[in-house]
């Protein structure tokens, strides 16, 4: 149980920066998720915490100690890898006992801890097997079990679920959340899957191109993405972005996307004032677009017309790919919606959930909180 602090951490591989000026505080018992596309530096950041890579600049603290000079074994961390990294020549039991044996724990305690961990994970029956006799999900459990027996100050997870099939992944997600609740330990978890980030983390850190883009709670990042990248990366289906021009008309801010014009709600207008007169991206999530017929009353006034290109009925909802003017949009509409391809439809937009991102430079954000 410990706090982890990254202070101005950078990592260069030759001339390429893998992580740039990273400042991050992970509070004790937090479940922090580093999320971003592959190559964004999230794994490198994690590996520096583990001691598998040396930071080029900056200091890493675990608890109150600066750990830059400590080898992995002295950092009191346990790590779970994407490929599980089980020792192929050892049984499951020995895999789990290995770290404790190295630390010269008494036999009885090793045994007790291994049994305890295997009970938690439901792998009691597998203790005598070799890793190659296990299924993917079982291997994953053993890898987690091997970390648990250590009772480390910090758990590090490096994309642990990405080799599992979709169904198992959902199940393991829930189990890891439960596990965190039960162990009350600090967890740093790296993934490229924003769903994992949204569902498990108490705090998520979005990275891209070696830089931290945004740090916040899952809902905070979802509702108030600071830039185009974060907005597009977090949330599924992906947010719609429509190039537009911000107009100031009769003292009201408007969005002009040629095919349609929409007023910016009074509540949000002050934040976007600076954008008046410039090019921008109007962002709206598909689930904030309604078939006007089934939209809540107060949203019906802000509607646009669009032509339906593709209809994807998913049972619980319908995804529509539509064209409004020259812009393509995705809308998630009510299952009662009855449209056919190439038909026109009226879509109501919940402008209270709108986002506006400056076009140049696109990653500079106009605060909307």
């Amino acid at each position, binding site marked *: 149980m410990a706090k982890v602090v990254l202070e101005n951490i950078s990592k260069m591989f030759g001339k390429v920066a893998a992580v740039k000026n990273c400042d991050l505080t992970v509070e004790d018992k937090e479940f922090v998720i580093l999320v971003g596309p592959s190559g964004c530096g999230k794994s490198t950041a994690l*590996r520096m915490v*583990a*001691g*598998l890579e040396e930071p080029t600049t900056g200091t890493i603290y675990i608890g109150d100690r600066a750990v830059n000079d400590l*080898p*992995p*074994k002295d950092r009191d*961390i*346990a*790590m779970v*890898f*994407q*490929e*599980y*990294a*089980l*020792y*192929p*020549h050892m049984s499951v039991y020995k895999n789990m006992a*290995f*770290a404790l044996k*190295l*630390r010269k724990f008494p036999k009885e305690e090793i045994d007790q801890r291994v049994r305890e961990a295997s009970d938690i994970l439901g792998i009691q029956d597998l203790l005598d097997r070799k890793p190659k006799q296990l299924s993917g999900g079982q291997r994953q459990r053993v890898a987690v079990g*091997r970390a648990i027996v*250590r009772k480390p100050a910090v758990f*590090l997870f490096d994309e642990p679920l990405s080799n599992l099939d979709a169904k198992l992944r959902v199940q393991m997600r829930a189990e890891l959340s439960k596990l965190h609740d039960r162990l009350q330990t600090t967890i740093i978890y790296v993934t490229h899957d924003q769903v994992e980030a949204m569902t498990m983390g108490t705090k998520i850190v979005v990275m891209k191109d070696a830089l931290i883009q945004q740090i916040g709670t899952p809902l905070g990042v979802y509702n108030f993405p600071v830039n185009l990248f974060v907005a597009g990366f977090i949330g599924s289906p992906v947010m719609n972005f429509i190039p537009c021009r911000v107009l100031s008309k009769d003292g009201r801010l408007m969005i002009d996307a040629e095919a349609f014009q929409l007023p910016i709600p009074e509540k949000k207008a002050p934040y976007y004032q600076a954008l008046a007169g410039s090019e921008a991206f109007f962002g709206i999530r598909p689930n904030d677009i309604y078939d006007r017929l089934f939209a809540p009353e107060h949203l019906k006034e802000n509607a646009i017309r669009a032509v339906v290109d593709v209809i994807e009925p998913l049972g619980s909802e319908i995804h529509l790919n539509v064209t409004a003017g020259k812009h393509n949009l995705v809308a998630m509409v009510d299952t009662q919606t009855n449209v056919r391809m190439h038909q026109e439809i009226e879509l109501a937009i919940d402008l209270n959930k709108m986002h506006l991102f400056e076009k140049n430079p696109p990653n500079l954000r106009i605060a909307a909180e």
Partner: protein
Amino acid sequence: MVGSETLGKRVLGIYLPLAFFIFFLLFPFYWMSLVSFKPTNDLFELKYNPFWLQTFTLENYLYLFQNTDFSEWLKNTLIISVVSTVLSLGCSILIGYALARLRFPGSNFLGVGIFLAYLVPPTLLFIPLSQVIAKLNLYNTYWALILTYPTQLIPFASWLLMGYFRTIPKEIEECAMADGCTRMQALVKIILPLSLPGMISAGIFCFTLCWNEFLYALIFMSSGPMKTIPVGTVSDLIKADTLFWGALMASAVLGSFPIAFLYSFFVKYYVEGLTAGAVKR
């Protein structure tokens, strides 16, 4: 195989050439064994068919142990081969691991250097090396060969082991380090047990080369009882005019046997090692 083959085609295409190869490649061994079990007199009897055994005898083998230093040679060859193999394997594990896993200044350069060392033949070096051995006072000591053989073994063994280490996922080792190993502990407890087949290949390769080496042994081990089997056989059993063919062949058979025996057990590993450089890289 593609298409079905008739028996006739198989005989022509496979069994006939196979018979040729087996005959050509194995005849000298047949001949050596044959002569080694023949009484010397039978060799001179022109009316006998030389391709067959008229009388079976072990006298040549007895002669070898009673009238020559063969048992000494055997002991020398064994000691030198084992110690040199262990030494080379130790050095090669460290080099192979460093080249496969560690980023350190000059590693690329050293990797190429090791590869080039593999191509340096003993004939290029034996004259100056004999001076070095003389200066170090190592003539007619085991050390002369134990220390010089590794120069022929380390390059290939390192190369082979490096390739093997690279096939082991890096995460396993990193996990061991997070679990509490130092790098060296991770090497000993995790990497080495997992690369056992690679080490067997490398070990067999080293042992075979030590056992078979001729030039350095010829030069550095000139005193009778310090010789190795190949050198002793060639230099002590071939005496001008009076050739002890039976004993000579018996010695050749006995000297070849351990290698053939070892090899037939570990064919797979040897072939893997031999082809590692060429095919897998």
